[in-house]
């Protein structure tokens, strides 16, 4: 009897091994054994700010010290809000990885369709908001100021405040404030754009994710320093990383690049019937309507994203922007609508996504065993490692 049981167990074990996504049951510190392809992928995922200039091409104030200083003050300035009570920092809290840990978004609008994401590294993205309705970081800031559910102000008020408060300290940036009383609509618009570009310059300069243990791990591999690599990621975390890269699991297909987002829009079964007006399909309409989209302020050659925008497609329905996986440490909840309270729940979602009939969907259930879900979670936590405030000091 015992024999049969043992044999049965052995058989089950062997079967289990075959059922696992390839390659992962023996992790035992194989830091030196990454394939050349995997190493290339790891380097591609390592934190880098090289793309800042390219991604913020339409912001001529990028890297300008005075714009950065002005933007830093504006980010914390409650005078930009209609109520005079809140600033960008109320919902993107510096002490909490720029996440909305006080749920201000929901307090202001309990029906809100989109939760506030953390914004460290936002300047490295191609699209902004969950539906990508802004195509530049600077136009994103302007949308917030005029959104009745957020800062609830308007451009005339914002520009008046800008001039009254800051023109003395930033004469070069705000020289047009002199003619403010006679300013026409387009003059106001131009100053409003300067305001947005200053905030964006600050975000691009100072709101970048901290170097995580993952990044240091890749550095160590690059240097051939496997002892250091082993000290940086433990077996479980390396196993999680391997799962993350595994084609059967597929995370890296969408979560790639230095921010762990390829800035694409995909449908991952997070839509509910009747919620379609918050997805990429709607985002495209809003983007084309926006007064501050790239084509309205730059030459067409600087706006390839808009020139070749995907408009006529069934695939934008139910699709949301792929979010960054860095800096999730303080995130109080996940997905565009904040439906999940934990990363465990997100991983469970990928294991068995609830699909709607007849809807386009871009994921397949990820075959993850319980211990693999823990490994994947351990890896996601590595990406959130590095305390922002501490490392900035």
């Amino acid at each position, binding site marked *: 009897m015992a024999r049969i049981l043992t044999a049965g167990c052995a058989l089950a074990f062997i079967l289990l091994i075959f059922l696992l996504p390839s390659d992962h049951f023996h992790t035992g510190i194989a830091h030196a054994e990454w394939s050349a392809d995997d190493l*290339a*992928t790891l380097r*591609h995922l390592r934190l880098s700010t090289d793309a800042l200039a390219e991604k913020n091409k339409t912001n001529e104030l990028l890297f300008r010290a005075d714009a950065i200083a002005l933007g830093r003050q504006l980010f914390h300035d409650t005078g930009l809000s209609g109520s005079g009570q809140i600033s960008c920092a109320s919902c993107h809290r510096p002490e909490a990885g720029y996440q909305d840990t006080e749920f201000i978004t929901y307090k202001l609008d309990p029906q809100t369709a989109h939760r506030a994401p953390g914004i460290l590294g936002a300047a490295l993205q*191609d699209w902004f908001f969950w539906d990508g309705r802004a195509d530049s970081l600077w136009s994103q800031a302007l949308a917030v100021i005029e959104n009745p559910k957020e800062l609830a102000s308007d451009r005339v008020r914002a520009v008046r405040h800008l001039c009254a408060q800051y023109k003395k300290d930033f004469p070069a940036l705000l020289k047009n404030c002199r003619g403010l009383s006679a300013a026409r609509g387009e003059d106001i618009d131009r100053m409003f754009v300067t305001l947005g570009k200053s905030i964006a310059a600050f975000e691009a300069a100072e709101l970048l994710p901290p170097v995580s243990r993952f990044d240091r791990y890749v550095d160590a591999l690059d240097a051939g320093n496997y002892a250091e690599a082993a000290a940086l990621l433990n077996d479980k975390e390396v196993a999680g990383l391997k799962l993350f890269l595994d084609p059967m699991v597929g995370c*890296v*297909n*969408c979560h*790639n*690049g230095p921010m762990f987002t*390829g*800035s*694409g*829009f*995909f449908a991952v079964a997070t839509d509910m019937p009747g919620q379609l007006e918050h997805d990429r399909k709607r985002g495209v309409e809003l983007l084309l309507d926006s007064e501050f989209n790239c084509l309205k302020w730059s*030459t*067409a*050659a600087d706006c*390839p994203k808009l*020139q*070749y*925008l*995907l*408009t*006529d*497609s069934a*695939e934008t329905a139910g699709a949301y922007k792929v979010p960054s996986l860095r800096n999730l440490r303080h995130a109080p909840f996940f997905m565009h609508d904040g439906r999940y309270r934990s990363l465990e729940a997100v991983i469970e979602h990928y294991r068995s996504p609830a699909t709607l009939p007849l809807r*386009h*969907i*871009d994921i397949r259930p990820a075959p993850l065993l319980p211990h693999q879900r823990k490994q994947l979670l351990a890896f996601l936590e590595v990406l959130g490692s590095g305390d922002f405030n501490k490392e900035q000091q």
Partner: protein
Amino acid sequence: MQAEMQAMSRRLLSIVLVCCVFWGEARAALPQIVAKLDGPVSATVNQFYELPLKVSDANGVGLPGLNLQIRGRMPEHSHGLPTTPRISEKGEGRYLIEGVSFSMPGRWVIEILLDNKLLLRQELTVKF
């Protein structure tokens, strides 16, 4: 501006792919169409590419004024291109496809259609 655009998007490794397609209905009028797509065999995610295309008849005479379309997809996934590329005529049967981009690494298939019928199919691998 045009030059800038091209500088930005060009990364051509230039392989030449020749594909002969017999085109059903119009066989009498167009016995054979030869389409050549000069484009990359491999590409990087999230870059813009432009693909020069030449369409000619069996004698090598360029065919201008064709109603061409482009389509891209990933055979292992359910989605197509993340952009809407544009095709412009460059004279004498030469065309330029601009605004091609790939949102995911892996195997992609690009298809050129003539009046919505398949004229040419090319595979390429997209990497990080």
